[in-house]
């Protein structure tokens, strides 16, 4: 820049004192943590869908292989893979072994991140933090869950010091009960919940029919056993199978309560997240590294944060986590273009949208877990893939992604699309 240009920009920077967090966030700096590849598998119904016979390690190997092939990155440069996963036994064995089986060299390490439904986002944060700290230069975050093959057994047997503790004992409550607590404590009506859920189905239906969701999904080849004949065949799975077309609030209103034992018994199979299999992967490095390697930058990780709250109303975690990450990144609600909130239950979804005063049009514009499922460890990474794809489609920039976390937490992260 010329001297005059530098002096002019100096004066201009004095004159834009309230240069917003948005403009700061959109600046491109060499030490930004950027995403150069983001994709997910289809999400399919547990025990019924296309991934029902695919164990978690095969799911991981399939997706990691796709990342290796499609990212055009030399696999020797991948230093660590962090797996966000909640249910798989022997997670650490399985993660490292799957990385190697997917064609990465022995120098690629692996670890596991588990904070329930935020595990996928936590994995992204772990890899990003390692890059920020200089521990590694390139890493893959992957969220994956096979709920068909790894059942969610709920809380284990816990110490009496926990079961007798007034707050800690709330951790024994099943998630369905916490949904009813939110509906009851905050007066969320069944009608609002069904409307919220129907909107999720309708948006997911539109996203499938218009082909938007194809931008997120990489088809994977799996072995599947016919339940009647027992014949195993190889199939390509390429679409989410949970989306029921033509769903309305009225049709959802006819479904019986799933938890008659807990008042107000408004949660149903139609307005809660589905039990699903799936995986999503995010490739991270510094901008300087991406430019050096000629990687295509699709987005930027701007930070993530976590909050804790009473376990019995864990669903409203995003209503704390989102303001916290906005403050840290200097953003306001109005700066957000896409808001992905995991639809664990419609009760918490309705509460978070109303409490934060979010524009419903910006919240889960392609539908959410109620429509196409919530593979626990996958969701945090899946929402990033969805948000970046939707920002590209709308030609917008900033997304926040957030989820409630069992045992009473909320996590949120901010991402920028650089399409």
């Amino acid at each position, binding site marked *: 820049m010329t*001297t005059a240009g530098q002096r002019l920009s100096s004066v201009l920077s004095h004159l834009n*004192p309230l240069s917003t967090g948005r403009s700061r966030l959109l600046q491109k700096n060499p030490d930004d943590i950027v995403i150069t590849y983001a994709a997910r598998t289809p999400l399919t119904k547990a025990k019924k869908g296309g991934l029902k016979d695919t164990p978690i390690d095969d799911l991981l190997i399939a997706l990691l292989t796709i990342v290796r092939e499609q990212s055009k990155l030399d696999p020797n440069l991948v230093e660590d893979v962090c797996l966000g996963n909640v249910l798989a036994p022997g997670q650490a064995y399985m993660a490292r072994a799957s990385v190697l089986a997917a064609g990465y060299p022995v120098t690629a390490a692996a670890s596991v991140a588990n904070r329930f439904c935020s595990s996928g986002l936590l994995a992204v944060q772990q890899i990003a933090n390692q890059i920020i700290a200089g521990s590694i230069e390139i890493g893959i975050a992957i969220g994956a869950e096979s709920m068909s093959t790894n059942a969610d057994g709920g809380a284990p047997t816990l110490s009496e010091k926990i079961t007798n503790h007034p707050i800690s004992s709330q951790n024994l409550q099943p998630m369905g009960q916490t949904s009813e607590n939110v509906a009851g404590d905050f007066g969320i009506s069944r009608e609002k919940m069904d409307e919220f859920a129907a909107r999720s189905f309708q948006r997911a239906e539109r996203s499938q029919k218009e082909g938007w969701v194809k931008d997120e999904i990489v088809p994977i080849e799996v072995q599947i056993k016919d339940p009647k004949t027992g014949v195993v065949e190889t199939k390509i799975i390429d679409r989410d199978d949970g989306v029921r077309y033509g769903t309305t609030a009225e049709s959802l209103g006819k479904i019986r309560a799933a938890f008659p034992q807990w008042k107000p018994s408004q949660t149903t199979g139609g307005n809660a997240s589905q039990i699903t299999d799936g995986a999503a992967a995010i490739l991270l490095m510094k901008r300087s590294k991406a430019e050096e390697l000629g990687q295509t930058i699709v987005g930027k990780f701007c930070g993530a944060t976590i909050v804790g709250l009473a376990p019995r109303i864990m669903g409203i975690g995003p209503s704390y986590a989102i303001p916290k990450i906005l403050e840290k990144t200097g953003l306001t609600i109005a700066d957000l273009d896409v808001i992905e909130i995991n639809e664990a239950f419609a009760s918490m979804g309705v509460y978070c949208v109303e409490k934060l005063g979010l524009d419903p049009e910006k919240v889960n514009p392609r539908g959410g877990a109620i429509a196409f499922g919530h593979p626990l460890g996958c969701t945090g990474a899946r929402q990033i893939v969805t948000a970046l794809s939707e920002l590209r489609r709308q030609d917008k920039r900033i997304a926040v992604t957030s989820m409630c976390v069992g045992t009473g937490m909320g996590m949120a992260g901010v991402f920028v699309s650089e399409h």
Partner: protein
Amino acid sequence: MEFRTAGYNGYAVKYSPYFDSRLAVVASANFGLVGNGRVYILGLDANGIHAERVYDTPDSVYDLAWAERNETQVIVGGGDGSIKLFDTKSPDNFPVQEWKEHNREVYSVNYNLVTKDSFVSSSWDGTVKVWDPVRPNSLLTLPTHSCTYSTAFAPRSPSIISAVSSDSHLRIFDLRTNPSSANHLVHLIPIHGYPPMPGSTYGPPRQTYAPSECLTHDWNKYRDTVIATAGVDQLIRTFDIRNPKAGPVAILRGHDYAVRKLSWSPHLSDVLLSGSYDMTARVWSDGSNANAPSRPANLGPEAWGDELGRMNVHTEFVTGVDWCLFGAEGWVATTAWDERVCVWDVRSVMNPANASRFN
């Protein structure tokens, strides 16, 4: 009273410490972005303001300081990184001395008020330099690693230097400390506030602000541990360097754009004058004088201080402000990008109760 620096946009004005009728002004063509600079030595008399000497410089000029030992000399910092010494006794219009060590724009120069034998300069090149006007090279270079808009000697100590930078920090250097890797830095005060200490219950929770470029600062002339700072975030803050960790003592809120220059009154210990990109010059009390209304202690630094008056005559960014050291206590000079130097009495923009404090 008014003087036009026709074709040149004002950057700084300073009263002579020797004569109540003499001012120096630096101004630059094309708003200091590109082109020449000009130094004016102005005289005041019953007929108004007239130029006694005019010096042209090849690049923009941004700040000046009167030599404390020689009533005919001024030191000027410029866009080409040079510092020039002009002497009105010199018959020609060239500087009698020139120092070229800074690599970028020199944005402030300030004379040592105690020993009167040295001055300090700061530059966009991220350094503060200490000079003896009779030597050809600088005595000392103090790194700030950040574009440094303003630096000053402490008014009562010959060896303490302060500087504020675009990195939102106030630095205090003490030249009496031994040479070390700290480069004489004794305090590094985040002007926007210290980050909260997790889990600390000591003291009330502090409000935190986003870091922002600091453009100006000044030492209080009576309380020699008090410094006022101001900059892009529009707030004027006062700090007591005896307890820098306490954060600002007072925060004066009011300017609508960045504050470009600050000057404490040489007469009243609680009064300061500011010039801003919002085209106003404002007079403030930091709330420290004994007659100020008492304030609840729990309201924090924003409860302190009041705007006493504001001058709206300038039609462009106000870049230079200074108080007259002599005579009536309310006289000030301001300069701005509207090519004008105004000499006015702060009492004219105040209510009578406040104006009566100035003799």
